[in-house]
């Protein structure tokens, strides 16, 4: 899961980024409206945390531009302006949720989880696929109740496939959602990670669609 944080206050941006990384997300950070708009417009994010009071281009305009351009990733608005008029304006501009400053980090994490889950059409924090159970709140996975020792990247790969289970996900898409923008991307590493993940899972859940990508399918659902 790859997120974008657009926040001009460097301390707050760092705190958000750290907390999100710790929760198992890949995070890109933008410090002004122009940069934030550009990243959100060009990179595929699973959710965006957008501060409304931004230099160069205000958050509301950024949001409106994304929505006009058809970018429909979930957006959590972060605002110090807590009047309902501003909240309504944000929601009308296309925000999916808002958190008013000052906030507790857990609240932001909970809202982001809910947004990502909603985008995947899931109802709870737990994603199941056959014997596999992923706890998105705790960033943990288990098979038949046995906890899996996953690295952060492996967890992200598994969680992304689980959120889009049944669908073939291309390697490019995986790379885009598993690494931040500064990462030197090499699609071969994905194959390595998928191999390791298969071994750790111990059950045949990840299928390879040759030349297309991978899909996570529960054993009973396999065609």
């Amino acid at each position: 899961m790859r997120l974008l944080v657009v926040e001009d206050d460097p301390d707050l941006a760092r705190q958000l980024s750290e907390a999100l990384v710790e929760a198992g997300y890949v995070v890109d950070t933008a410090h002004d409206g122009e940069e934030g708009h550009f990243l959100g417009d060009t990179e595929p994010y699973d959710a965006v945390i957008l501060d409304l009071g931004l230099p160069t281009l205000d958050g509301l305009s950024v949001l409106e531009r994304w929505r006009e351009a058809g970018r429909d990733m979930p957006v959590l608005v972060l605002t110090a302006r807590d009047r309902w008029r501003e909240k309504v304006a944000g929601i009308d501009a296309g925000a999916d949720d808002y958190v008013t400053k000052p906030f507790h980090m857990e609240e932001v994490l909970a809202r982001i989880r809910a947004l990502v889950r909603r985008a995947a059409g899931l109802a709870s924090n737990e994603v199941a696929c056959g014997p596999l159970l992923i706890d998105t709140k705790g960033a943990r996975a288990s098979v038949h109740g046995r906890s899996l020792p996953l690295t952060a990247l492996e967890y992200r790969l598994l969680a992304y496939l689980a959120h889009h289970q049944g669908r073939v996900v291309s390697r490019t898409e995986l790379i885009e959602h598993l690494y931040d923008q500064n990462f030197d991307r090499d699609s071969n590493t994905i194959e390595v990670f998928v191999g390791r993940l298969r071994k750790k899972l111990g059950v045949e859940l990840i299928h390879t669609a040759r030349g297309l990508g991978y899909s996570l399918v529960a054993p009973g659902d396999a065609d």
Partner: protein
Amino acid sequence: MRTNSLAFRLVAGAAVWSLAALVIGGIILSMFFRDHVERSLDDRLTLLIDGLAAGSDTNAQGRPILIRPLAESQFDTPYSGWYWQIGGPGPEALRSRSLWDMVLRAGPAVKTVDGLTLHHAKGPEGQALRVARRQILLPDRDQPLGFEVAADLADNRRAIARFDQVVAWALGVMGVGLVVAMVIQVRFGLLPLRRIRRALVRIRDGKARRLEGDFPREIAPLAGEINTLLDHNAEVVTRARTHVGNLAHALKTPLSVLGNEAAEAGGPLADQVARQTALMRRQVDHHLMRARAAATADVLGARAEVAPVAADLARAIQRLHRDKGIEIAVDCPADLAFRGEAQDLEEMIGNLLENAAKWGRHDIRLSAARRDDRLEIAIEDDGPGLAPDAMQRVMARGERLDETVAGSGLGLAIVRDLAELYGGEIRLDVAHLGGLAAKLRLPLALG
């Protein structure tokens, strides 16, 4: 009409002036008429003297005789009021039959015209007489004789009295007419002032923000000044609100950073920082809300339509809680308006709807109505509701019954503070839908 009014001043001023003009005019008319009547009597007396003289002669003894008497029959009727006398009061004098056995004794001359003198005298029955006398030299006499003709002034005085009466009535009616016309004119002239008053009442009632309308040249500057004042007022409020918003923004980001840093670090210092930042956050929220609301509660002309506010908030909150499938049914007449700032109404309805969405299962009902000249807004949910003692506690500032549901806990307290600032109130009750019902009573904007 009160004495301390423009209309009274204008009407009283005009009435005093008209009255004086009418009285002076009446006196002049009366004097002119008196003079005219007196002059025509004098002319007639002069003619009669000339006629008398023409009909007189002297007999052989040199005494005056009347060879052709005057035609007027009044001179033959005793004490008729018309008399003549030739030769003064002496024994050889000739007198009209009307004098009977009386002698005409004229007083001193009051006027002299071409050898004719005019006198006043007392008649045989005590009548006031006007006497004209001329010294005429008859043929064969060396001494001129005094020819006198007298007429009763009673007719003249009656005519003058009647004339005065008519003039007084006519001028009186005219005076009353003038005052009435003046009152009408003043009222008509001052109509624009009434319009200004009505326009100001509309502003006070929140039906208008500025003085609208085409005012006459004399009071257009006044209307302009009032509008400038109103604009200035609105600008000051807006500026104050902007400053307050900026302050909020400026404070909240550092508060977030501090709070998060403390939560991350752990330890007694971090706990202390976390507690204090939470306290600061509540204080900032509470006092900013008070400052914003206090700046707006007494602003003239504030008015907010309820229906659009309710619709906007219902749409936004439904979207926020679309996972839960919250449905908000809004029942609000289109013409209902709150007498206050739209933003404050939004805060109250927004916080209550948010609470309802948080606790409700599926259905929320927002209904607004006019009751006893107050605006009543009820927000009901189908959630678990609250026990009566919990309803009391939850209204206390910042009290939260369930720490696990997100929210600062200030929501209801903010609603209560805002409602009280506007002289309204909030009550909690059991909803028809089964959950909690929050009922707001607020000032209604009339019209």
